[in-house]
């Protein structure tokens, strides 16, 4: 499959959750008021948060998958997956501010400061923001080697997402713990494969 066709496929697949959401919103506005339950705003906040996390995991999975399968072409799609992570995380933040807190700025800022789980979620988004802004080829050229170390900040961003989710456990811990294990596994894979590389670098200096 030529790369452009693969790019379109990834783009459409990553867009499917949003398409699902948009059709739900349209149907709700057309009278199917109970489609997402009696708290549609809350449902949308949860849905976008879940998909931000799913795409974060997909983005982190690209390089180990490429390494293990030998399919180098997988790396050509990492940028788009990363950008979709930021896109759904932003929708999540927007939905929280608009649909749950109705743009009450004072309340939004208070909540973000006072509730640790929200602080961690917000920090994660704040890390993703510069990564999304510098995702272009131009910035990659301008930042040279620093670009790579900058984009390693996606690791703490993923860890913060896990903390954001873990802190919300009430009585059922399956999903937050499952996601956390996936994050740890994906970061752990890097640790093992990065170690020799960093040793090399050390010895070279």
């Amino acid at each position, binding site marked *: 499959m030529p790369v452009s066709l693969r790019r379109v496929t990834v783009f459409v697949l990553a867009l499917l959750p949003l398409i699902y959401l948009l059709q739900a*919103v349209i149907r*709700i*506005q057309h*009278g199917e*008021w*109970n489609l997402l*339950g*009696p*708290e*549609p*705003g*809350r449902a*949308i906040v949860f849905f976008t948060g879940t998909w931000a996390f799913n795409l974060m995991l997909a983005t982190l999975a690209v390089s180990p998958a490429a390494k293990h399968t030998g399919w180098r072409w997988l790396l050509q799609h990492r940028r788009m997956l990363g950008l979709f992570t930021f896109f759904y995380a932003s929708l999540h933040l927007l939905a929280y501010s*608009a*649909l*749950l807190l*109705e743009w009450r700025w004072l*309340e939004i800022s*208070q*909540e973000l400061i*006072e*509730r640790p*789980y929200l602080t961690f979620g917000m920090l994660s988004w704040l890390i993703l923001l510069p990564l999304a802004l510098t995702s272009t080829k131009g910035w990659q050229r301008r930042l040279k080697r620093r670009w790579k170390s900058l984009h390693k900040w996606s690791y703490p961003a993923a860890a913060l997402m896990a903390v954001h989710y873990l*802190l*919300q456990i*009430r*009585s*059922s*811990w*399956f999903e937050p713990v499952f996601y956390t294990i996936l994050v740890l596994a994906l970061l752990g894979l890097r640790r093992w494969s990065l170690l020799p590389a960093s040793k090399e670098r050390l010895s070279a200096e």
Partner: protein
Amino acid sequence: MLIRKDRFSTPPSSEITPHSVYLKRRHFMQAGALSLLAAASPVRAVIDADNGRDLSSPAWLAKQVSSAKPFTGETKEALTPYDNVTGYNNFYEFGTDKSDPARYAHKLTTDPWSVTVSGECENSGTFALEDLLAKVQLEERVYRLRCVEAWSMVIPWIGFPLAQLIKQCQPNSRAKYVAFETLQRPKEMPGQRSVFSTIDWPYIEGLRMDEAMNDLTLMAVGLYGEMLPNQNGAPIRLVVPWKYGFKSIKSIVRIHFSETMPATTWNLLAPNEYGFYANVNPNVDHPRWSQASERRLPSSLFSPNRIPTQMFNGYQQQVAHLYKDMDLERYY
């Protein structure tokens, strides 16, 4: 002299939709919605029509519920639609998702049902539900229900004051608290089989004796003029409208009178988040969210229907005296 006693619902008169009018409107809307849905997708219409309804409780109870004294008080607030009350709630015995209770509770056997009374009382023993209910007159009451998660509903319950049941049990002078226990039957309650749950079953809740004897405290056996659906705590549940919803324990099988404060499920699980009293209080936040306001359901997408939360859920006139010397920030 005529003394008018404010019985329970503080909101002033004349604004409630009478139940019959509500039902008419509901039928009208249902008919409209169903015809629309039928045109679009006949399968869905059939599913929606009997969404979550499993009112298989015994005929004697149905009869008693249908002859309940109708609601005579008044409230300004619109009732939360039946489908939301029965399709969106917490009953962790059936799962932690709010749609789980409606999905799984039909497996629960609610007849025969008995309640065991124990502890500091004269009349202990195990009683068939029928015998307990034979001595009470059911009535309808419209209450606000405020969940600790900051959403709220307005629900027309059918039940009787808990005080009437307590009198039947004849608690002695040592009885300072009353505890309640939910059924534990993992075979019929998938949430109790879950290995991911940190709850120690059975679910236990409790009240101080004066709270339990307050006229607002209701034992409910019905909802919206019908019997309680299983997901809402059939066949008998507690309703304590000035406390967060988790105090209103469902599907009660045991009532225990004690001299000491009972250990309660959510308090054991996370004492910094869920106090024993759990009075609705806009001034004391849950550690993870503010309690100053609530989302009255149903909410629409672009206006979440957030309203300020009232002290004691708006029932301060009837219950504030119970806590007059207490620091409610400490005893939350």
